[in-house]
């Protein structure tokens, strides 16, 4: 007997209502029930961070959350970053700095970075340093790039956003 719940969740601003088994992970729900396959599963035990999404604005491992825990909440995935034809500033920076190769970990790093950048903005984190960015980037695993392009891309985006928003 399956234990199924009817939930409402907002993903990238769009409302979804669906029945989900209680044990189904948020990652599987996003990928297989709602079609957001940009959220990737690299380990399913919360280490690699490829499945990182934002839940109510904060980075979360979608493999360690159940879909039902997203009931009534706001989820952001990689599919929501670009504005139509235009890549976001962060996505463009990843391309400019060669911050991706196979691209499997990339959605997780993008969402991790967006969560961090949003938190910086709230807390007025001042001029970002490479060491700060490196500490954040160390939360996720990448097997292709050696992290350098990822660090550079997030650092440049942080600086640009900081300069834009500084009084």
């Amino acid at each position: 007997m399956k234990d199924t719940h009817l939930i409402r969740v907002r993903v990238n601003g769009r409302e979804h209502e669906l029945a989900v088994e209680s044990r189904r992970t948020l990652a599987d729900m996003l990928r297989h029930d709602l079609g957001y396959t940009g959220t990737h599963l690299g380990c399913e035990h919360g280490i690699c961070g490829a499945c990182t999404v934002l839940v109510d604005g904060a980075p979360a491992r979608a493999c360690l959350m159940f879909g039902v825990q997203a009931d009534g909440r706001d989820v952001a995935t990689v599919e929501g970053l670009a504005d139509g034809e235009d890549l976001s500033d962060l996505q463009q920076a990843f391309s400019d700095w060669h911050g991706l190769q196979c691209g499997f970990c990339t959605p997780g790093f993008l969402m991790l970075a967006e969560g961090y950048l949003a938190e910086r903005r709230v807390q007025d984190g001042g001029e970002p340093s490479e060491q700060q960015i490196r500490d954040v980037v160390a939360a996720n695993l990448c097997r292709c790039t050696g992290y350098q392009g990822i660090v550079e891309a997030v650092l440049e985006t942080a600086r640009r956003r900081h300069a834009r928003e500084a009084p």
Partner: protein
Amino acid sequence: MTIGTSIPRKEDPRLLRGQGRFGSDFARPGQLWARVVRSPVAHGRLGPPGTARAAAADGVVTVITAASLPPGLAIPVRLQVQYADLTGYLQPVLAAGTVRYVGEPVAVVVAEDPYAAEDAAELVELDIEEAPAVLDAAAAAAPGARALFPGGNVAADFALGYGDVAGAFAGADRVVEIEVEIGRHGAVPLEPRALLADPEPATGRLSIFGMTKVPVFNRDLLASLLGMDETLIHVHAVDAGGGFGARGEFYPEDFLIPWLARTLQRPVMWVEDRAEHLVAVNHSRQQVHRIAAAFDASGAILGLRDDVLHDNGAYCRTHGIIVPELTVAMLPGPYRIPAYQGRVRVVLTSKTPCGTYRAPGRFEGSTAREQLLDVAAHKLKISRNEIRSRNLLRADELPCQRSMSTLGTDVVLDAGDYPALLAKAQAEADRLGYADEVARGRRAGRLRGLGVAAFLEKSGLGPQETADVVVSRTGAVHVFSGGTSLGQGIETVLAQIAADALGVDPDQVSVVNGDTDRQPFGGGSWASRSTVVAGSAVHAAAGAVRDRAAEIAARMLEAAPGDLISERGRISVRGDPGATVTLAEVARATAPGCPHLRPGEPAGLSARRRFEVAHMTYPYGVHIAVVDVDPGTGGVQVLRYLVAYEVGRAVNPALVAGQLRGGAAQGIGGALLEEFCYDENGQPQSATFMDYRMPTAAEVPPIDVLITQDSPAPGNPLGVRGAGEGGVSAAGAVLASAVRDALGLAGSVGRLPLTPARVQELATNGGGR
């Protein structure tokens, strides 16, 4: 010209938007999900698994064991070398009678839903009478060892070499011998494997999503195992989350999932989880080297010998014995070695079987050889740079043929200037302040060390690769290549090569890799071959299309083909800007019935060309690193890291740098952190990412890169040398060198990875062996 410029990658927009299509992203109506049941013990007699409870579980469609399959199915070796007969050591697609490692497939459950399949897999009852595991290669190779196979535990024992080695050692002023052990680790791409097989009842065809690396080979092998015509199998191009040698080889699941789909006549999807991946996919690297060199009084090498024990795990898989072969064939590296013998024993143990991992054999061999040179320099009282520059082959000594073969081709070091690159690397490290940083750290009381290592790579393995270039009615250029996209950016590189040959913008070129219908003769992407051999094939095919387009345009413009120039997608008469046609117009003029198409000429603007090459090309490089050793914890922090690499010609320099940086990061993992450990019963102790420790941004420093293009490869029209493996090749060597320097050891570091516990022991007891 776009070759030589770092144009943005064609792969990036889809991957950045989450619109990549990886194996597990596909779905088909009515799709079933498979779950593989794996042996929980390392060695034992396997009775028929009890499947009744699993088969009766909710949502389960079928449960299969070896008894369900045609008998005797085993996965053959893809690359046969050194005439080794490995038929007694091949892996069955499902274990029958015996299990030989934890993780070996013994049954498959197929269900309507992945959760149901995973639940039911736990209901399969395994009847295994446990036998002692054999975990140590030396013990397994010793006389009287418990035999894992009727033929014994040594699958192959062979030597490569040349010259009078005994004479060289007998006449030496000094002989230096050390032992170096390389830890078991592996590729571990971030995307676990995934495979979808979809039968088409109307045509009898089978569509496969998720096979990469060598799709045409895998298609042909699958066809023969299934008894099908190979053209009825269509392996589709997909994105792949990293390969590094391990992904895309033919594993048991590559037979089981298509067989199930065909038998059930329903699409079957299988996605492995990480815990499975770490025990199922090829491990690599584990070797013990007893290596010795004979020197004259000036420090010149007279002879080199190595005795290698290679732990291949439980079976010989698709790679057969190429990793041990490459180890001894490439061991002399870039040095002048008048006499050499490398012997290797390929030993089977009760662990996950092995295959290639980025720079197979070279990571291991370079670590042993460079550590030997460091110890020898100390004993000969000359500097580490001096011993290298004295023994590196000079430019005037190349080409250098060594009387050995590997991967079925003779070892002929093609061209280059090895001492010049060592000097350039040292100058670059000085410019970047490496030596100052060492001096500063030591003055501050730190255990700081500098490492240096030189290495030889190999790339561009032929003997052939095929490419098709087709121009469609819109003027779009389509490249159908035999390479595969594993994240390396090969779509972009091939687009640049085609664009330059055709005189169009790379935006006008699309590249499809790894689709067996579109390119049925592809050799795949491995051994740093694709830019060299796929690139050369694309270069030839695009050149043929350019010539054909000029021929048609000449008819359209009533000009001589020799008077035409092709640029930016237009063909014009030289000196007459008004007389011009677009590539699209030319393509349309080749449609059947067009007046410009002559009787007997084939319609369409396209060409298929094959590039053939007898020998590989040999890139080379130098790694230099600075490390700190924490005397309290034994932790090693990499502070600076330089990769200097001769690439012949960089098609896209940013992508070359990316390959080198990513490789160095993996090498730091293998040298300091990553290891597949087992307990005394053969239970894997590195079965999660908590225990198998891949480097993060906290462990990998910014990697300095010096790409040189001083020595274009003579063996291909582009002069390219391949860039896939130069970042990782000498990482074990340079970090061993740096840690040895930091600790002031007289002997060798002995063993990689240099984990805190081992470094502490070295700091306490000194190096040795």
